[in-house]
């Protein structure tokens, strides 16, 4: 497994326990997903520091979006004002894994807040972080 894939997959292998309600409050981040497939689920992990985002800490919140059941959004409310970044992946076949092709590249869509792309790898905190002071809304492409 390549370093690229390892980081991307490990970073996105997030628990499916939490499920945020789409309840937008004063300080909140609401993500709407533009998907290429109507199956499976989307996993979202939200981080509140560059340190945690880089894998040296836990996410501050997580969400699982049931795409197959028609859900397309995740909302994180009651956040402390600050900067946040999310790692997102669409588990299209719902097998709980980020699938890769025989050469180790991801075959299921993944994304980051700001629709940030990395430079030869996952997007870093510098590109993905969002300042959340009020109600922030983003549409994230997962195609």
């Amino acid at each position, binding site marked *: 497994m*390549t*370093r*690229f894939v390892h980081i991307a997959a490990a970073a996105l292998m997030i628990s499916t326990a939490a499920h945020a309600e789409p309840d937008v409050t004063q300080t909140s981040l609401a993500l709407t997903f533009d998907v290429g497939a109507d199956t499976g689920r989307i996993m979202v992990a939200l981080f509140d520091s560059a340190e945690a985002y880089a894998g040296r800490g836990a996410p501050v919140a997580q969400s699982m979006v049931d795409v197959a059941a028609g859900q397309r959004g995740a909302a994180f409310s009651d956040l402390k004002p600050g900067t946040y970044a999310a790692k997102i992946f669409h588990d*299209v076949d719902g097998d709980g894994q980020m*699938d890769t*092709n*025989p*050469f*180790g*590249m*991801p*075959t299921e869509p*993944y994304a980051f807040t700001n629709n940030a*792309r*990395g*430079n*030869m*790898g*996952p*997007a870093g905190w510098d590109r993905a972080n969002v300042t959340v002071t009020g109600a922030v809304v983003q549409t994230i492409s997962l195609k």
Partner: protein
Amino acid sequence: MTPSRRHFLLGAAALSAAVATPEMVRAAIAQDVAADWSLAAADLETDIAPRAMRLIHGRAPVGLQGTLFRNGPGKFRRPGGSVTHWFDGDGLMRSFDIRDGHATLSARFADTPKRRHEAALDAVVTPGFGTPGDARARVGSNDDANAANTAVMVAGDKIWALWEGGSPLEMDAGTLATERFVTLRADLRGMPFQAHPRRAPDGTIWNVGSHGDRVVVWHLDAAGGLIDARVLDLPRASYFHDFAATDRHLIFVLQPWVFERTGMPFSSQFAWKPEMGTQVVMVDKADLGRMRVFDLPAFSFFHLGDGWAEADGTIRFDLAAGKDVTFAVDGAKVIVQGRGPMPGEPSHLALITLRPDGRAEMTATDVTAEFPKGDPRRAGLKRDLTVHVAGEGGGRPLPTGLAVRDWSTGRSHGFDFGETHVVEEMVFVPKSGATAERDAWLVGPSINLKTGVTELHAFDVAGIEDGPIATWAADVALPAGFHGVWKG
């Protein structure tokens, strides 16, 4: 660490800009004015809407009806940073449509994530084959760096713009509008699909995607649907741009330009090690696990012809063989610079023979050659003729003519436009209802450096030395393309 194409995505992209040496500065002063041939890598700023070409010579051949699709880089420079290597410009798909004696030209840039991102920044920032890129690159997958600029394949009623490190990019054959990256099967998304697919006598299409010492072998139907895909291990992690095939075999030529380090640009990952020699790997199409390896002295290459097997099992294929990788590393940069001396030597036409007893030999000719092509009716089958561009090696880079080699007589016939033309790859178009190899036209463009426009030529294979039988002129010069395909 497995040396592989994946390092395309792993290398440190932000490399420092090239440092100018006193020699480079002196050379630049000495040749301050861009050479005439720099039109070959000039920037095209916009798409070319369909426009008539003017017949300026000869007569349109009766029966020559169809479209020559050609791909190649069309935009290199932006204010905030530029491509530094010929292979990294934005893909420009061209259509030369010939109907009832009239020729129509149109051209459209491939609408790739790379081009969108760089247009927004007004800077070339994405790493490529020979362009380092910089920290502003946005590369989350191979296809984010896909220039879709190398070749074109007909897939049913669509065309696919091909690169070599990512997916085919599907386009509408009529409007040249970009539609989507092609995923041949969900679990194979993003696997490399190289620029030289080969049609087999049974009508199916074989192609490869290289990844270090592993290769994916694609087998498609004529419409571009997947029949099968398998991953094979090769004996070395060599850079190769093309492969050959007979009706029963795939042939991989593993030059001693081998993976050595990670980093960008992609070409910087390879080291030229002539002491390793060149290996030729023959794989059985019916049983991809069956592999035979032949050894030859070192040579370099980009392009091979189709192969064929003879009755006793001997296999032959033609190629444009080089001495080393000077062109790939340095020469292709000179073409974008548009000035200065061309380093290295042009490649020469050669024929490789693989004997049933395991011996291999290469017969070199003294004819300079690139883009070897054969009769598509004989792809994978015995043939006598190879057509190719020729004439490189004079005072400037890029071909000035074309030639046909008859392997049965050892004779070559050619036509040279002289230094006032940059001649591009010509495709072989069989005459309808005819079967002999010589019953065909060659169709392809040149850039007329004197008039500053692109021309389209048709030659008769039986009389190449007589020059074009028809020439149409555009009212615009397109930069030189790489590879084309004829759709009758």
